[in-house]
């Protein structure tokens, strides 16, 4: 008798094994926490030696995670907020900047996708603005807006706009001529053609752009918050580094990864819902 194990289950099992092997190797490679603690306690008592940061073993990180995640929304003043609050700040900035960008990028992308004239006219601006690192805008934003919160949102806005703009324009410009002809032979007006034919036809390409944008926005927010400070997961990482609390740093790195994965999964879900097969 043979037991058929589905491919997915096999892959999952292998992932788990890899994770355990990695964590095990890590745990063994790190000098035991007690030893380090004893030594440094002695050093601290004698006043010799600055507090030294050690890469913590995974067991310590897991302990930290359990503690943090059991009470993620506590707030004990500016430098001591729960991980949930910090992530919420970052998500708020990312989503605000991102949706403002979508509000502008998608209509303009539509326009330049429909009109070769507008495309040619706007192309040089896009080509120059697009390669600028979003953080390069930060000083200018801080000076003009005079508000660090809004500046971070602006940086997210500016980095999210390009993939959405370019993909929308590309998707709209490449809608099959046949489908446009279907709209024409049915005497659809331009607004109806835009919403009933061009938008659904270009939706998969537009959603690809939106998915790329949200990924970039989540990458950029960490750096932006390290610069502007105050709140947010980027600030949290930097703050814990200044406290030499590497356990928290590693824990927050993992959280950044997990939230980024969830954001991407959400957009992948929307993308699948507008996907069609020709």
């Amino acid at each position, binding site marked *: 008798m043979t037991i058929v194990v589905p491919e997915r289950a096999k892959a999952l099992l292998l992932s788990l094994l890899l994770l355990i092997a990695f964590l095990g190797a890590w745990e063994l490679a790190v000098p035991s926490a007690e030893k380090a603690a004893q030594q440094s306690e002695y050093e601290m008592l004698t006043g010799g030696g600055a507090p030294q940061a050690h890469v913590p073993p995974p067991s310590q990180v897991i302990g930290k995670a359990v503690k943090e995640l059991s009470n993620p929304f506590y707030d004990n003043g500016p430098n001591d907020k729960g991980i949930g609050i910090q992530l919420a700040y970052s998500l708020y900035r990312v989503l605000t900047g991102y949706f403002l960008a979508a509000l502008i990028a998608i209509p303009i992308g539509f326009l330049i996708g429909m009109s070769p004239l507008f495309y040619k006219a706007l192309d040089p601006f896009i080509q120059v603005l697009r390669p600028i690192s979003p953080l390069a805008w930060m000083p200018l934003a801080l000076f003009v807006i005079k508000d660090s919160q809004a500046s971070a949102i602006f940086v997210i806005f500016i980095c999210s706009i390009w993939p959405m703009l370019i993909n929308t324009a590309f998707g709209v410009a490449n809608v099959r001529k*046949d*489908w446009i*002809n*279907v709209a*024409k*032979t*049915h*005497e*659809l007006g331009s607004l109806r053609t835009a919403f*009933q*034919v061009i938008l*659904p*036809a270009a*939706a998969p390409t537009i959603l690809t752009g939106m998915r790329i944008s949200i990924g970039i926005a989540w990458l950029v927010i960490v750096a932006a918050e390290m610069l502007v400070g105050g709140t947010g997961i980027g600030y949290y990482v930097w703050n814990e580094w200044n406290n030499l609390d590497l356990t928290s740093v590693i824990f927050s790195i993992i959280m950044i990864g997990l939230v980024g994965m969830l954001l991407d999964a959400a957009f992948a879900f929307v993308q699948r819902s*507008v996907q*069609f*097969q*020709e």
Partner: protein
Amino acid sequence: MEKPFIEVTDLTRRYPAAKGGEPLTVFEHANFSIEKGEFVCIIGHSGCGKSTIMNILAGLDAPTEGGIIMGGKEISGPSLDRGVVFQNYSLLPWLSALKNVMFGVRARHPDWSRDQVVAHSEQYLEMVGLTGGAEHRKPAQLSGGMRQRVSIARAFAIQPQLLLLDEPFGALDALTRGTIQDELIRIWSATEQTVFMITHDVDEAILLSDRILLMTNGPFARVAESVVVDIARPRQRAEIIHDPAYYKIRNHLVEFLARRSKELSGSHGREASGGPPLTVRPGLKDPDDKEREPSWPKLVSAVG
């Protein structure tokens, strides 16, 4: 004499020269007419401009010279009066079969309620034999034949004055093609629809049409002949092949496509206005083929 329903006059389509080349004249001085309720097929070799003529009829393309009058009005753009079944079906892939038909019905009757639109669409899907759940599937989940049925249902459902079909069965296997041809005949006889259809299949043209227009090869293609299909209706695929007229017509068409479409092509030395195509009736039971024989020398001499 009463004016025909559709009158194509001196239709010419040229494409501007590519860099360093000469302008391309796809066809010129095409003259023909279509009566109300008539089923007309057009045959010609690939590239002679059949699709171009149909696009001009549909209002999707404009002629370089000449024009088309339909029902007393010049055709100047697309209209719901002319339904089109494109060569590649052109269904909207993100909509189900039913929604594709509803798309057309809604465009035609913006004032109808949703229930009316659904009922009307379902009626036409039923007419082409697409029921039992298939109507809720997306085009990608339908076979080529089913897709073509949806496309035909969409075009018939808007009840246009003229139905345009561009090689509608070109991509289908012979069996499926046969069934859909039968369905098309059935629907057409029930609706008295005027149809203009492109095909490259001689048997299909004889089975379906009242009249077959023959085009010479491009460039400078012309509509050279109008062949009347003198076979009584209703026609059955299995029976018409025993009709003596069938092979006379078939031979005439095959002979034209094999030989004369080439001989007559590129003959732009003719007078500027081509005049109407020669009417031929190879199927008439005329003992000495009076109608057909004398017309050939006339045509050849006209070519020069």
